[in-house]
């Protein structure tokens, strides 16, 4: 019916479930934004390119509505990454979002069955 020796290598499950237990889903996900030396938010792409002018700025509890927009000054978070936490990119301007997820969001359950 199945192979007798099986190895499960699950680093993403491990990271995500640990983050879930730490933060839950009632709160926002840990977020990160890219900032310059003056803590002004810039496009995330700047932090993915070589060079030292930009760095990530972290909101371990998601930042709520306080995540800086592009050109805004970052506050309420930290430039130090919390070890063991998975950080997600934060929304940025110029693109509409929220056009998916509304039906599931009203149901209170999940999208699987």
């Amino acid at each position, binding site marked *: 019916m199945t192979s007798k020796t099986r190895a499960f290598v699950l680093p993403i499950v491990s990271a*995500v479930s640990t983050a879930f*237990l730490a933060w839950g889903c009632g709160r926002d996900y840990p977020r990160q934004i890219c900032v310059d030396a003056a803590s002004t938010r810039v496009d995330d792409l700047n932090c993915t390119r070589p060079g030292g002018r930009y760095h990530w700025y972290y909101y371990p509890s998601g930042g709520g509505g306080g995540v800086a927009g592009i050109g805004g000054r970052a506050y309420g978070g930290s430039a130090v990454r919390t070890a063991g936490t998975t950080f997600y990119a934060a929304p940025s301007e110029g693109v509409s979002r929220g*056009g998916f997820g509304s039906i599931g969001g009203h149901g*209170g359950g999940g*999208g699987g069955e």
Partner: protein
Amino acid sequence: MQRRAITPRRDWQARVEGLGLVWHTAGGQPYWNEAAYYSFTLREVQEIEAATTALYAMMLQAGQAVIDRGLWARFGIPDWCAPLIAAAWEVEPACLNHGRFDLAYDGSGPPKLLEFNCDTPTALFEAAVVQWLWKEEVKPKADQFNSLHEKLIAKWADIRPYLPPLVHFTHMADPAGEDVVTVAYLRDTAREAGVQSEGILIQDIGWDGRRFLDLQNRPIGALFHLYPWEWLVREDFGRNIAAAEPTLWIEPIWKMMLSNKAVLPLLWELFPGHPNLLPASFEPLRGDQVKKPVLGREGANISVIRGGRTVAETRGDYGEEGFVYQAYAPLPDFGGSRPVIGSWVVDGEPAGMGLREDGLITGNLARFVPHAIEG
């Protein structure tokens, strides 16, 4: 097929939580229930496996019939989706083609199809990983119907040449963590096959007028979604699916035809009397029956009608698209615990099973019980 009581491991919560099963308890009751297990013989498992193969073959013919006859309204599918579904059915875009047949089976007769969850099936991680590791520790000499993990990895490897360099995976921020971890598990199987992935919450997906974008405004070339098609197409961005620059949707939109209760009467019409099917109709049947919404989820809005009266029913928000009526198939009753067999396919082939037990209606508070092959 027997249900056997067994002493749970002393620290079972910590063990399964350590694996990632953070939703092991729901409403104060164990969701992962290792105070019992189901014991099968090899013959019984082979019967379930053969039924799964047969049902999948019938499903393919049913899908073709939906397209040939244009049964979109019957299936509650918006007209504008029809050409997208027909095109995807023809082209067969890369996907896992995975799903879970829910079967009624007691070991004494053929397994009977209750429904096919092939769009956003869950109970996957616990079936693939958690119950296997339980078996290894508690019943090491037994076997298990379970090759899910290997088949998922193999399928990712199979489709990798057709995928962009980065595959996005989306889901809801469900409060229980089930969707979050199920998607993480699928990302791990993709990673094992060399597929790079990134997670994004469903509400974070962006639209710039011509493309779907991630949070770094990168185009989403391929998107695994644990979020059902019937919701996607009805939401604000739904219509953009048809107009957008191509995104590879995993699973594809043709799953709307088969992960739909309206396929049940169609199957009975195409294969009347098949031993793995139950009589089903869009009109009430004679005798004991179950009324199900065409587009229902997690056991909501279901009525069990026996002897002419409703003996069990669940509430919910479904039913707008109509109902189907399926002959009642009694689930085996082990002291009030009635198991439904979830028989998995990956790439259309049998890949294992997981059992959930509940009362007359299997809802979202059903308990997952591991199984072993012992005879």
